[in-house]
């Protein structure tokens, strides 16, 4: 057999096994904290975007573009923290059991958030109207998770 192919395949299997096992070894409390960290930063960068959208803060093309980029990246991060091992954790979390009882709905909400964030980041820098419209659409996706899958 092709030596390169074999060693590549071996590396892949070892690498996959390593990353999977390393991932699975992370304690539930740590995973909870990490996904919460991602959400905290979403709040941090969403705040100014929302204020610009509502006209409560002057539109700043640089801040708008930078925050949109951050939000698009952050929107992808929390999900690998919602693994089954965190379902019954004693760590302080507002995640509801619904997440694991209704995984398709949860995934749909997560996907909506990610695609709306990506759309916001795709708005041309300086396009104030486009930005505000996309920000409005993004704001509508928050409730998809927070209303049904988060406590109070």
């Amino acid at each position, binding site marked *: 057999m092709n030596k390169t192919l074999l060693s590549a395949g071996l590396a892949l299997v070892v690498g996959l096994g390593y990353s999977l096992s390393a991932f699975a070894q992370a304690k539930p409390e740590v995973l909870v904290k990490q996904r919460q960290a991602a959400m905290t930063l979403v709040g941090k960068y*969403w*705040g100014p975007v929302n*204020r610009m959208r*509502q006209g409560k803060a002057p539109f700043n093309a640089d801040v708008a573009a930078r925050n949109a980029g951050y939000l698009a990246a952050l929107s992808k991060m929390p999900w690998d923290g919602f693994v089954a091992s965190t379902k019954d954790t004693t760590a302080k979390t507002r995640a509801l059991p619904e997440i694991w009882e209704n995984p398709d709905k949860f995934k749909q909400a997560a996907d909506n958030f990610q695609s709306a964030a990506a759309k916001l980041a795709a708005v041309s820098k300086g396009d104030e109207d486009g930005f505000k419209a996309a920000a409005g659409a993004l*704001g509508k996706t*928050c409730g998809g998770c927070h*209303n049904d899958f988060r406590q*109070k």
Partner: protein
Amino acid sequence: MRYPPLAAVLALLFSAGTAPALAQGDAKRGAYLARAGGCLGCHTEQKKGSVPYAGGRALGTPFGTFYGPNITPHPQAGIGRWTEADFVRAMRHGRRPDGANYFPAFPYPSFTRIADGDLRDLWAYLRSLPPSAKASRAHELGFFYRWRFLVTVWKWLFFSPGPLSKIPGASEVVNRGAYLVQALGHCGECHTPRNFLGGPKRDRFLAGGKGPEGKGVSNITPARLKKWDDKELAEFLTTGTTPDGDVPADAMGEVITNTTSLLTPQDLAAIIAYLRTLPPLPDEKC
């Protein structure tokens, strides 16, 4: 006067001319009061393009599902045949024109505290709405809960009718806030925990717990409210964004959109000032 008959005629004409004017409310003021009271939320269907105040909104509760009725001035489908006295009786006493009890899903335990003048203005506003022929939907209630005469017992236990009295020693601002919160805003209807009979726990005012539809509601006594300053609270109630960029639950989001974001800055400040005077209570255990 020298000519008593003339005086009598003049007095009659004068009173006839002014009496209707005194009895009529101000529909414009009433529009603001209706926003402060959040009437739109329960009396409008949650559907795109639905007619305001024509009814149809479902409210899920442990007793069944209630549907807010049509309160436009349509003579058959709405309250077009009502008199002002009927309206006052509904709001102040929780009774229909035919004398039957309203279920307290209609928050008359709060609305009873609204002042006479405001009720008059609200009535004028409702009369000014375009009539809608949309039929009100019947409630879907559990077996015992659908008997209106049992509400008489509930009222005896939990309902004290009458307008709100001023808090002695409190400022005008705090009193205005108390009125907006306790009477029009009816915040306690969601934010005060209830016992198994659906009666509000008086000593746990605004301590949160489980809302009518089973979802958690926040404790908004100073035990929790102290975490935000006045500016942050005002911003939350106008923009619907928390200081750390978070969003409210859908139900509160509606309240912000339909009510608190539409209040004058003075009224919003009054609400916040009043809330800060309340006794700090621990969170209600859900």
